[in-house]
Every structure is written in C-alpha cells, then in structure tokens.
C-alpha cells in the first residue's frame, strides 16, 4: 500500500511542499502529521513506495502518546487557530492593544517582552514561558514591519514567516507566591490602520469581532500629541469616535475593562494630559470601567522616568479586574406566600 501524508492543520502545505507549518525539521514528528492511504489514482504519482518496507515493530502506545503531546512551536506570532490550542487547555487572557499608527503599541509589547526576558517583571510575577518568543524578539529588533497595502482585514487563522499579520503574541506569567496562579496572556499585535479605519467607517467593525472574548482593552494614546495645543483636539476627537464605535458598532461588553495607556510620558514630565482625562470620562459614560495609566515603554531619560513605566500596570489592572455587573442582580420571582418572602 502506498502512503500519502496529510496534516490536520488547515493551512499546512506539508503534503505538497514537505515543509511543516510548525517548522518541525522532520515533519513526521509533528503531532498534526498523519499518514493516509492514497487513492489508486494518486498512487501513480507517489515516489516513495512503502510496500517493500517491513512491518513496523509493535510500539509502546503510551510512549507514542507522550511523543505526540510534545509539541514544538515555531515561536512566531499566533493566529486564532494556533491560540485556540492554548485556550482549550488553559484559560487565556485575551488583551487587545488598540490605537492609531505610531502611538506606541509595538513599543508596549517590546517593553513587556524585554522586562520578562531580563527578569525585570515586578516582584510577585515570574516569566512562565512563551510560544511566540521569536515574534517578540523580531519586534524588539525591528525586523517585523507591516507591509503597506497587504494588511489582512481580520485576525489571521495561522501566521506565516514572510509577512507581519494581525495576530496574537503569547506570554505566560506565574505568581511568585501564594496560590502561584498561572496567567496565559494573548496580546494582540494589530496595525494602527485598523483603528483609523474604524474611526472612518463602521464597516471596519468586523475586524474587531474578536473583542467579544477580550478580557481587557488597552487603548494606547500618544501623550505628546494629547498635550500639544496643535494636535490634542484632533487626536481626542478621533479617539472619542473610536470609543463610540467600539461601544456601539462593535458592541464591546460593558464588563470588559479599559485601560487608557498614555504613552511617551517621559516627554511630558509624566503628566496625564487633561484631554486624556476627558477621554477617560467619555469611556466611563459608555458604562465601562477605565483606568488611566501614564506610561513610557522606552524612556528617553531613564534617570527621571524608568523604562517600562506603566507597562505592567496595564496588564495587572486587567488581570485584577473583577467587576461583573447585573448577573447576580437577576430579578427574584415574588413568592406567593408570606413564608417564602421572609428575608430576615
């Protein structure tokens, strides 16, 4: 019998190219790799007849199962399907990092990564692995840039090595003491154009459908632009439109906490611009819980403002948010008898 190969992963082309989507050097060791019987028609094209090979010796099934569960990750950013592999085994905290172009979204991600990789996370938290280390590293070195005109309109299912795509970065954290809980962060890496597009047209809301599962939203705004007289009104108004779209058109749940992350604070003496406070009030008017954080992912004057200021605070604010409204307050059915209506 001739054996063809296939892969359970939807976008894997191992059957035709021999290259594993998960970058396994030997594709047959990939847990998603499967051998299948080829149809008679396709047998003629097979180049590797298996008939003469001896029957494989009986194997220890438990050992096979152990090998199958040993998965190697390529380390690049994750698509939604890749992220589901993590989420179905452990709860994943999905954190959306949103904002216009050049406000500091990528700097936020890089700063977080560099703190984790240099053992500089705040006390109480430990780095607990990442399935996208290479993706963080590429961003930190400026090797992964958005390509003009080639932006995907949704989070991709699977990512590729050749281009940067809207995707997720994974970072595992563990509490250093107490219950030593683990947190699997799935942080979005989205182009600023998505935010700009949503401000301009409601039809861009489809790209943000994933926010229904977000555990928190970090809206990044440029502190310098919000402080400057020439730019603050335009930037503030644009973000007000953006928040209106998130609340109205996208329909982000009211239990999702917002962080208004004011970047480049090192250049404005760590002040929170009044325009940012007004923007936060606008977010609150929509019924969301919002926290304003003055931040500097990379400081131009580290002696005065330390690198990474406000980066982890944003993550911690979302991880600690516990405000679920309305569910426990479900209306009671009035009891028919006085005995049933007694409440102490």
């Amino acid at each position, binding site marked *: 019998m001739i054996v063809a190969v296939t892969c359970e992963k939807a976008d894997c082309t191992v059957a035709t190219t021999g290259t594993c989507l998960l970058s396994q050097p030997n594709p047959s060791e990939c847990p998603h790799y499967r051998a299948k019987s080829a149809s008679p028609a396709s047998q003629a094209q097979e180049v590797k007849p298996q008939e003469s090979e001896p029957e494989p010796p009986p194997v220890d099934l438990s050992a096979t199962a152990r090998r199958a*569960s040993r998965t190697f990750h390529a380390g690049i950013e994750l698509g939604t399907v890749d992220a589901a592999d993590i989420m179905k085994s452990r709860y994943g905290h999905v954190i959306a990092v949103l904002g216009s172009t050049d406000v500091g979204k990528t700097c936020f991600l890089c700063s977080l990564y560099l703190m984790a990789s240099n053992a500089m996370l705040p006390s109480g938290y430990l780095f607990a692995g990442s399935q996208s280390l290479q993706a963080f590293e590429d961003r930190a070195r400026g090797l992964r840039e958005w390509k003009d005109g080639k932006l995907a309109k949704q989070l991709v299912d699977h990512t590729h090595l050749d281009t940067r795509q809207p995707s997720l970065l994974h970072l595992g954290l563990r509490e250093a003491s107490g219950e030593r809980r683990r947190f699997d962060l799935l942080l979005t890496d989205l182009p600023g154009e998505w935010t700009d597009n949503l401000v301009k047209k409601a039809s861009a809301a489809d790209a943000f459908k994933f926010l229904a599962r977000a555990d928190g939203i970090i809206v990044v705004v440029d502190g310098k632009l919000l402080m400057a007289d020439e730019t603050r009104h335009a930037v503030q108004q644009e973000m007000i439109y953006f928040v209106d779209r998130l609340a109205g058109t996208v329909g982000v749940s009211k239990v999702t906490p917002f962080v208004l992350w004011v970047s480049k604070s090192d250049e404005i003496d760590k002040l929170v611009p009044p325009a940012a406070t007004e923007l936060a009030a606008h977010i609150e008017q929509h019924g969301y819980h919002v926290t304003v954080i003055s931040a500097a992912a990379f400081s131009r004057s580290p002696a005065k403002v330390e690198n990474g200021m406000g980066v982890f605070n944003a993550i911690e604010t979302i991880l600690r948010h516990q405000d679920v409204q309305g569910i426990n307050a479900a209306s009671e059915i009035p009891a028919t008898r006085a005995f049933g209506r007694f409440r102490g």
Partner: protein
Amino acid sequence: MLNKTLEFLRIADLQPSDEKVRKRSESAKDLSDLIAKRENRSLLLSCVQGVAVGFDGALFTHDASSATEVYKVINERDKTLPSELKENAVELRAVAAIALGELITAHTAREALLAATALNSALYSRPSVNEQHLRVILETLSAAARKMLQASADTRRQRNSDALKAFEALEKPADESDLWDEIMPVMSSVIKEVRAQDEVNQEELETLWWLFAGYSELEGKALTDLTVLGAALASGIELAQRAILPPSASAAGMIKRATEAGRKPEDLALVKLQDAAGQWSNAMSDSFSTAEVPIGKLTASYPVLFPLVSTCQRLSADGSSAKIAKEVKAQTGLALTHQHTPTEWATQVFREKILQRMLVDTKGQ
C-alpha cells in the same frame, strides 16, 4: 441554554467557526440528555464539579473517568479535539457548562433540580474567579440555578384546589351503580391535595416555631447560649432538616436571623474556613450521618459539592498542617484561609445538607 454555546465556547476558542459551534451545541445537547437520566447521576455530579473548579484540577487528574465521558460525547461528533486532559480541559468545561445550563433551563425532571441544587452548593462559598469570561459563565449558571430552584420551591408551596373544585362540580349520576367509579378518583385527589397542603403548612409551622423558640435540638441549648459558630451550624442543619425540597429562598433570611440574633457586631466578623471547620469537625459529621447515603462516600467522590463537610472530615481525621491545607485546597478548591461571615458559613452548611437530602429524598418535584 444551547443558545449560549458561542458565548461559552469562547473561553476555549477566540473565534470558533460556525461548524464548531454547531458541533459543540449538538454535543452539549447529547450530554444534557445523558445526565438527565437517573442512572447517570454520578456523571451529572462530576460535571458540576468540573464546571465549578475545572477539569484540570487535582480531582480529575487522579480520576479522569468523568472527564473521559464528557470527552467521548464530544468526540462522537468531532474527532479533532485532543484526548489529553491537559490539552482539552477548558473546552470540556465549556461544553459541560452548556449541558448543565441546558438541563437546568429546559428540563423539569428531578435531575434538573438536583443539578441546580448541586451548583448552589458548589458555587456559594467559592471566591469569584479572576478570569472574566469564566466568571460570566459561572454567574450565568448560578443565576439560572437560583431561578429554577426559586420557581420550583414556589410551585411546591402553592395552594391548589383543583381537585376540590372537581369534587364540588360532581353531579349525582342518573345510574347510581357508577357512583363509586366516578367519585373515588376525585376523592383520592382531594385527599392527596389536602395532604400536600398539610405538608406545606407543617413546614411553615415547624420552621417558624423553631425560629421563635431559638433553641437547638441538636445541641440541647438555646441558640444564644451557643457560640456564634455553634449557632451557625445548628441553624444551617436544623433549618435544612425542616425544609420541603427544594427549600424556599426565605431560608437564607431565617438562617441570618437564627445566627445573628442577640450577637454583637464583633461576633459576626469574618471567620477562616480552618477555624469554622476546626470547631465543627465532630458535630458536622454527626449531623450529616444518614444510613441511606453515607456522607463519607459523598465527600470522597464530590468534595467540590460538599466543600465544608469534606474539610471538617479531613481536619478531624488528620489535623491541620501545611500538607493537609494543600491537599484540602486541591480537593475542594477552597483554601483553609478562605473567609466568610458566620451567617455565610451557615448558609453553606444549609446548602450542603439540602444537597445531601436531595440525593436520598424521593419526594419533591
């Protein structure tokens, strides 16, 4: 609750495909039908435990049989879900939650009532989870269980006079030879109706007199002569013994009155689980011992549903040490340092006793 499949499934998949939502919805329906049967009661109770603390907890890594059952149901419609518990635990939890929600909201069978009672006992004392979307699921299930129990308790206590009206509407038959056949079924219904009504009245009388007397029959002392924790235990147990199943929502108010009457505010401060359980160990075991369902068997299989009794038994048997504290947390999902007011602990006692009664009682809805 199948209409919440997409919402619940999102804890395990950011953007599940339409096909996946359909398959999981069908699997949840299959699981719901399965646990609605009396013979699958242990699977039902295990599902409640899995939803409350997760299928990746120590409870399920030691005995994965119920997790395997849930996996099998999903696997029948979708072969792509990994079989390893460490790779599918959240997805199993999502499907089990949908199935339980469906059972509670769409069924009226006794198992639906049991599921709601078990959820009520498992979730009440537990601290709220940090994971937002998981918290929404647990809150949704908890609210559905509360609503179902409340409606069911009210229905059980509603005055009914349908049979009496039918009796009064009887007319004298022309042929008196058929009188017996006509009158007996109606008379039988009237008697049943009167008996049911008497049962409801009896519950009210027993409970109100117990509350008015303020006297614990278990301890043989006035409630005010007991410590506040002693009064909490007595009120939780003794009110649960007097309640018709399912209990009325007013029970919470009665527990509060019995526990807090005559106490100073400082007596009602937060108490750690280890202190409450340490004080209650022996009395708790006595209060829960019944011939029908030995409590030891229940706590061994379902520590998440009986966290308080389980902890009491464990501390009574092995004492309190760091090792025991760790094991108790792994088994019940509650840390020994977890705190509640005496009234809240009394309510947890009440809920666990009600669940135990529900497992042996054949009456009720």
